[in-house]
C-alpha cells in the first residue's frame, strides 16, 4: 500500500488552521460547490459506494444510514455528535478545535444530500474551546454564504446551531443525545423506531459523528473509488487512531484502516516506554474488550478486530506495559461506567454498582474468591441485557480482563 498523504489531519498543524481563510486557501469548501451542483441521490450513492462506516464507535455504513432517511418527509434534521467521551478517545476534540470547517463542510453536504434544512451541533460541555471554535466557524460560514438561505446560489437553505451538553457520557448514544438536545435528561430511547424514522421532536433525524462527517468532503471531491481503494475488504478509508498509555509518543495518527496494531504502537507512537514489553491493549476505547500482547499483529479494521474478539470502537488504542495492574485497570473502567450510567435500567444501574464493589475489595486486597465468582456471574448476566449498549460496554473490560488475567485477580485474593 502506497504511503498516504494525510486526509483528515492535513490542516490541523497549520498556523491559524481553525480560521475560515486558512481552510478556504487550502481548498476548503470546493467539495461543497461541487456537491451543490450534484443530485442529492448521486451523493448518497457515492457515499454508499465509498464504503465509509461511522467513526463514532458503532461502525454503521454511513450511506445506508443516509438512505434510511425518508425522501418525502417535509421536515428532517441532522444532528452532529461532538460528545466525545469514550475513555482513550481524543480525535474529535482535535478536529473541532483545529479544523472545524472540515466538519462543517461535511455537515452542509450531508444535510443537502438527505434534504435537511436544520442541523444541530451537540458538543460536550467540557469542551469549552471546542464550543467557541464551533460557534466561530458557523458564524464565519454564514458570512461567506456557506450557510443560511440560498447557499452559493444553489437554492438550498441550511441553518446550524450549537448546543452544549453538560457532562454525561451517555449523551454520545444517539437517542440519548436527541433527548438532551430536546432539553431533557439524557436517557436513551427504545429502538426501533430509529432516529431516521423518528428522532428530534419525532422527525426523521440523521445523527453523525464528527470524524465521519469530516470524511464527506473528501469522498465528494475524490470519489467513491478513491475512498474504497484505501483500507481492507470491510473497512474502507483512513482512520484517526488515538494512542495513549505507556507509549513514548502518544497522540493522534491518521492511517489507513487495516494498519497493524504493532505498527501503530511501535512505528507511529514510538514504542513502549523504557523498552518494556506490552502486556495488554484496549484497541477501541474503554468499552471494547482488552486484548493481550499476542494479538499485537492484528490489523486495525472492523472485521479483523472482531475476529480477534474485540472491536475497533472509536480507534482509541490504550497501551499497557508489563508493570500494569490489570485489576486496577478493570476497576477504573468499571468506575467510569458506573459513574456514567443513566440509571434507567437495573442491570446497568445496580449491577454496575455491585460489580464495582467486588472490584474495589479485590483491588484493596480484602476480596475473597467469592468476589471474583460474583463479579463474573454479574458481568455475564449483564452482557447484552441492558436497555442500551452501555451496559455491555461496561462488562467487556471485566469479562476480557478475567479471561486473560485471571491469575492477577486471584493473586489479589486475601490469604490465598
Amino acid at each position, binding site marked *: 500500500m502506497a504511503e498516504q498523504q494525510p486526509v483528515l489531519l492535513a490542516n490541523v498543524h497549520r498556523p491559524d488552521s481553525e480560521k475560515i481563510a486558512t481552510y478556504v486557501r487550502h481548498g476548503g469548501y470546493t467539495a461543497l460547490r461541487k456537491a451543490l451542483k450534484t443530485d442529492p441521490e448521486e451523493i448518497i450513492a457515492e457515499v454508499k459506494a465509498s464504503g465509509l462506516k461511522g467513526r463514532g464507535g458503532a461502525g454503521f455504513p454511513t450511506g445506508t444510514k443516509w438512505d434510511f432517511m425518508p425522501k418525502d418527509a417535509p421536515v428532517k434534521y441532522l444532528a452532529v455528535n461532538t460528545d*466525545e*467521551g*469514550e*475513555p*482513550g*478517545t*481524543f480525535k*474529535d*476534540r482535535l478536529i473541532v478545535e483545529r479544523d472545524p470547517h472540515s466538519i462543517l463542510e461535511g455537515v452542509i453536504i450531508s444535510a443537502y444530500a438527505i434534504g435537511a434544512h436544520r442541523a444541530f451541533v451537540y458538543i*460536550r*460541555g*467540557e*469542551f*469549552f*474551546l471546542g464550543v467557541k471554535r464551533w460557534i466561530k466557524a458557523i458564524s464565519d460560514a454564514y458570512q461567506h454564504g456557506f450557510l443560511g438561505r440560498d447557499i452559493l446560489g444553489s437554492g438550498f437553505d441550511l441553518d446550524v446551531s450549537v*448546543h*452544549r*451538553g*453538560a*457532562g*454525561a*457520557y451517555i449523551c454520545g448514544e444517539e437517542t440519548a443525545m436527541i433527548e*438532551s*438536545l*430536546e*432539553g*431533557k*435528561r*439524557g*436517557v436513551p430511547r427504545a429502538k426501533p423506531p430509529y432516529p431516521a424514522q423518528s428522532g428530534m*421532536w*419525532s422527525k426523521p433525524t440523521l445523527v453523525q459523528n464528527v470524524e465521519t462527517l469530516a470524511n464527506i468532503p473528501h469522498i465528494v471531491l475524490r470519489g467513491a473509488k478513491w475512498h474504497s481503494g484505501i483500507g481492507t475488504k470491510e473497512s474502507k478509508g483512513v482512520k484517526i487512531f*488515538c*494512542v*495513549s*498509555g*505507556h507509549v513514548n509518543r*502518544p*497522540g*493522534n495518527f491518521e492511517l489507513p484502516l487495516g494498519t497493524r496494531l504493532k505498527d501503530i504502537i511501535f512505528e507511529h507512537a514510538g514504542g513502549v516506554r523504557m523498552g518494556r514489553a506490552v502486556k495488554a491493549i*484496549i484497541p477501541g476505547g*474503554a468499552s471494547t474488550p482488552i486484548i493481550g500482547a499476542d494479538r499485537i499483529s492484528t490489523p486495525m479494521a472492523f472485521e479483523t478486530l472482531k475476529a480477534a474478539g474485540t472491536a475497533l470502537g472509536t480507534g*482509541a488504542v*490504550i497501551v*499497557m506495559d508489563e508493570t*500494569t495492574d490489570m485489576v*486496577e*485497570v478493570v476497576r*477504573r*473502567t468499571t*468506575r*467510569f461506567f458506573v*459513574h*456514567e450510567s*443513566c440509571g434507567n435500567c437495573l442491570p446497568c444501574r445496580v449491577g454496575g454498582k455491585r460489580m464495582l464493589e467486588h472490584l474495589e475489595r479485590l483491588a484493596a486486597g480484602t476480596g475473597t474468591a467469592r468476589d471474583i465468582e460474583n463479579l463474573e456471574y454479574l458481568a455475564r448476566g449483564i452482557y447484552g441485557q441492558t436497555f442500551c449498549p452501555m451496559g455491555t460496554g461496561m462488562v467487556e473490560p471485566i469479562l476480557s480482563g478475567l479471561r486473560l488475567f485471571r491469575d492477577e485477580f486471584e493473586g489479589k485474593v486475601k490469604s490465598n
Partner: protein
Amino acid sequence: MDSRNVSGKPEGTAIIDPAKRSMLLAALYVAQEQNGYLTRDAVHQVAKRLGLTDSEVYSTASFYTLFRTEPVGHHVIQVCEGLSCYLNEGAERVVDYVGAKLGIRPGETTSDGRFTLETVQCLASCGTAPAMRVNDQLYENLSPASIDDILERLMGEV
C-alpha cells in the same frame, strides 16, 4: 405524563413548546453563571420562563454533572481520573498533590471559598495526560512544577 408527547395538552398546564424546552440546558448555564451554582430562585426563574415546573428543571439539571445545586468555590479544579491519566502518573497522584497544596479532599471547598477540588471522568486529553480543568480552562501534560505554577497564579488572583 409522558414527556415525549409534546403535541398533547396535559391537563391544567399550557401546551409544552418543544422548542422552548430545548433551551433548558442553555438556560441553566446562564442561570448558573450568576452564583456559580443553581439557586432555588434561579431554578424557579428558568422554570417560569420555559413553562416548566421547578421539579422538571431540577430533574433535568440533576442528570448532568456540570450543573450544581450546591455552592462551589470561586475556582473549580477538576482532575481527570481516567485510565490514560492513571497510566501516566496522573489521576489520584494529581488529586493528592493538589489536595495537599490546598488542604482539601475531592468534593471539598477551601474555607475561604476560593477553591473546590473534584475528580472527573475522561476529559479527552488521553494523549496529553495527565490533565485537569480549572473552571473552563484545560491543563494538560501536568507535572508537579506545572501544577505549582497554575495554583500560584490562581492564588495571586483577587
